[in-house]
Every structure is written in structure tokens, then in C-alpha cells.
């Protein structure tokens, strides 16, 4: 599968999304090249989650275009998504992974091998036969990431993956994400946690009221953001 041309860079070109009569995403443009971890930063309601959903294809843009480098992404998507609240099927840990692989058309020995590899890689081997919904919150999110990883995405979207987790579980997820980036998976995640953005991001896209107000390497952004909204956000002032 890896011999097919890469889907990256992803190009988001003047994308808007209108809902309930309001422009929730307002003429946003950026590109996502291969590699690294991009953080979508901004206060609640900035349009972070919507932007991720638009990129992943869960929502259709009202205007503008989202294009992958290899043209139409084909039937098997090579980008996956992990949600804020882990969505666990009423099945065992292993069956959750197997189900996603089956949905992608992967069967037989390959499905079993990928399942086993995902369980090992994310330390879920001992939990394989347990009901996924009885795992702790941190373990559920780990399983959600393992399930996405098993699909071998080039680009992984995560929507506030740690906002419902305690600090220890948050650290564990952050370490996992760093590992994925080291493995060569491009990661794009939203967060409103500044510390997390500082720890993880190579690049920051700062959104405010549906607009992309700043797009810079993380080091530059945290050294001194250019946009007044971003400065206010970093200073901890409430902006809405």
C-alpha cells in the first residue's frame, strides 16, 4: 500500500463552513506537508474541531476546496481520526481494531497480524479480550489511537484527544503521539491546552472565530505571536 503516491501535502484552499446561518469556518487556507505535528490552537468555538472534520471528510465545505496530493483519496482512506470522547464499539478491545480493519477491506491473515501488532505496539495485549467500554478513559483513548494506527494512516487527525483525561493519562497519550511522529506519521491535532501545544507542536495554526489568524513554526509562535488575538490567548486573557 505504501508504494502508492503519498496523499500529502494536504491542501486546504479558502475553505468555509456555514452552519446555523453563521460562518463557523471562515475562508481558511493552509497546507499540511508530510512529517511533524501540527497543532490547531484556539479558544472554544474557534472552529478547530470543524476544521479537522472538514479535512477528514466528515463535513463538506460550504465553499473552497480540500485536496490531497494523489488526487481523489480512493476507497481506502489513508488518513484516520481520533475523537475527543473515545467511541468504543460494544465489543472486545481486539474486535474494535479488527472491525476498523474489516471496514477498510482488510481480511484474513493480514487483519490478524495488524491487530496483533497494534495491541503490542500500544500495550493493550493483556486487554485484548476485555470489553472495550470497560477500559479506563486513558486506555480507551489509547485503543482509539491503536485502532487508527492499525489502518496505517499517513496523516492522523486528533480532536482534543486528552481533554477528558487526567494528567497521567494525558502524559501517556502525548508520549504515544511523539512516538507516532517519530515513526513518520504526520499528526494534526486540536487542543486548547497551551502546555500540551508547547510540548508537542512543530507548527501552530491559531484559529479565532473561524478564521486562521496565525500559521507559524511552534518555536516562533510561542516566542512571540504576531496576531493580537494569539497574544491575548497566550497571556491567558479570555477571548471569545
Amino acid at each position, binding site marked *: 500500500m505504501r508504494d502508492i503516491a503519498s496523499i500529502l501535502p494536504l491542501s486546504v484552499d479558502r475553505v468555509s463552513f456555514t452552519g446555523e446561518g453563521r460562518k463557523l469556518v471562515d475562508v481558511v487556507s493552509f497546507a499540511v506537508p508530510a512529517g511533524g505535528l501540527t497543532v490547531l490552537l484556539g479558544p472554544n468555538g474557534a472552529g478547530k474541531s470543524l476544521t479537522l472534520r472538514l479535512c*477528514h471528510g*466528515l463535513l463538506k465545505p460550504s465553499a473552497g476546496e480540500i485536496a490531497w496530493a494523489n488526487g481523489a483519496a480512493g*476507497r*481506502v*482512506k489513508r488518513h*484516520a*481520526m481520533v*475523537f475527543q470522547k473515545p*467511541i*468504543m*464499539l*460494544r*465489543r*472486545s478491545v481486539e474486535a474494535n481494531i479488527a*472491525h*476498523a480493519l474489516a*471496514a*477498510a477491506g482488510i481480511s484474513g491473515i493480514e487483519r490478524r497480524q495488524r491487530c496483533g501488532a497494534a495491541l503490542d505496539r500500544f500495550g493493550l495485549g493483556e486487554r485484548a479480550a476485555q*470489553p*472495550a*467500554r*470497560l477500559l479506563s478513559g486513558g486506555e480507551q483513548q489509547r485503543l482509539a489511537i491503536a485502532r487508527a494506527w492499525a*489502518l496505517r494512516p499517513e496523516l492522523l487527525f486528533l480532536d482534543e484527544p486528552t481533554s477528558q483525561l487526567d494528567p497521567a493519562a494525558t502524559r501517556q497519550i502525548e508520549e504515544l503521539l511523539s512516538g507516532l511522529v517519530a515513526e513518520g506519521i504526520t499528526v494534526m491535532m486540536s487542543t486548547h491546552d497551551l502546555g500540551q501545544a508547547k510540548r508537542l507542536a512543530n507548527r501552530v495554526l491559531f484559529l479565532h472565530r473561524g478564521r486562521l489568524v496565525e500559521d507559524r513554526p511552534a518555536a516562533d509562535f510561542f516566542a512571540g505571536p504576531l496576531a493580537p488575538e494569539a497574544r491575548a490567548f497566550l497571556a491567558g486573557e479570555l477571548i471569545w
Partner: protein
Amino acid sequence: MDFGAIFQAAFALMVGLDPAFLAIVGLSLRVTLTAVLIAALIGLPLGAALALARFPGRAVVIVCLNALMGLPPVVAGLVVFLLLSRSGPLGPLGLLFTPTAMIVAQVILVVPIVIALTRQIVEDLWAEYRDHLRSVGLEGLRAIPTLLWDGRFALATALLAGFGRASAEVGAVLIVGGNIAGYTRTMTTAITLETSKGDLPLALGLGLVLIALTLAINAIAFGASRIGARYAG
């Protein structure tokens, strides 16, 4: 009336495994379970499809199905009677006053229950699963197997409701079956007949067996879903 004697006679019938008695119980179970099975095969996929589909008039369809859950069995029986009667459109099949006709009538009674409850259960599950299933490419009809499987314990309750309706009703099977002894006589039609004839021990015995069977089937289903839920979360 000597109730003690009636109960004694009823228990003697049940314990004595009287062949005529067993035939009635057997036919009842065969008709009802077949009807529920067919209704499940029709109603589960249709209910799931209705949960996911969005089309003009969907609300009307849902209201009609909910109303059909209360369709009087005698009316369902009458409709099937008209269809199957000698001059009716399906008359040439010669099905009137056969167990098959009774199954058809009970399917009509059970299908709306299965569709309506499945629609509700699957719609709730879809609201929870939607983002993930769409993310892995399971949209529309392709999502139905996952939703039915993951909703299986709640759906078992929907099928039990259907079983309850079919096993308890008398009007439909009486009209289309004709209550022919040894051929289309079920527990409910026999109870009706024996009570009016005054053979209370037989009526009571059948009534007790009907209640016991319903209890047993519900207990089995409840136990199975408890055990299953523990393994599936």
C-alpha cells in the same frame, strides 16, 4: 365451581403429557416462533434502514409504524382472511385455515413492533457511533450490520416484545386459522373455546403453560443478554 378440582385437573393434563394437549402447545410455539423469526428477518434490516435514511415523509412513516404497533389482532386477521379467502387475490394458494395463514397474520402483527423498536435503538446507537463509523468509511447501508450487532442485546428485547404480542393474541389466529382441532388449534384459541364450552381444567392448564412458556423465554433471553453484556460491555 370447585377451583381446587380445576387446578388439579389442569396439573394432571400438564404432567400427564396428554398428546392432544402437547399438540396444541407445539403448534402454538411453532406458529409464534416462526412468525417472530420471519418478522425479525424483515423488521431488523428495515428498522435499521429507517433509522439511517432521511427522506420526505419519514416522520409520517414512523408515526404510522408506531400506530401499527397497536393494530388490533382481529383487524390483522380480517385483512389476511380477505387476502387468502377463496375469492381473494391470494385465494388460489389455498392457505386459509392453515398454520401458514396464522404465521402470515402474526408476522403482520409483529413486524411493526420490530421495525419501530429497532428504528429507535439503532438511531440512538448511530448518534453515538456516527463519527467513528463514518471515519472508517461505514456510511448508509454499510453501517447497518455493525449497528445491529452492537445493538443486539437491546434488539433482543424488541424481539421479545414481538414474541409477547404474537403468543398472547387470539383474534388473528382464530379468524385465519379457524381453530380446527389437531390442525390449527393454538393455546389461545383453545382457551377461548374451552372456556365457552365450560371445560375449565383444559383452559386453565393451557393458560398456565402459556404463562410458563412466556416466563421461560423471557428468563432465557434476560440471562443471555446479561451474560452477553458482561462480555461486550
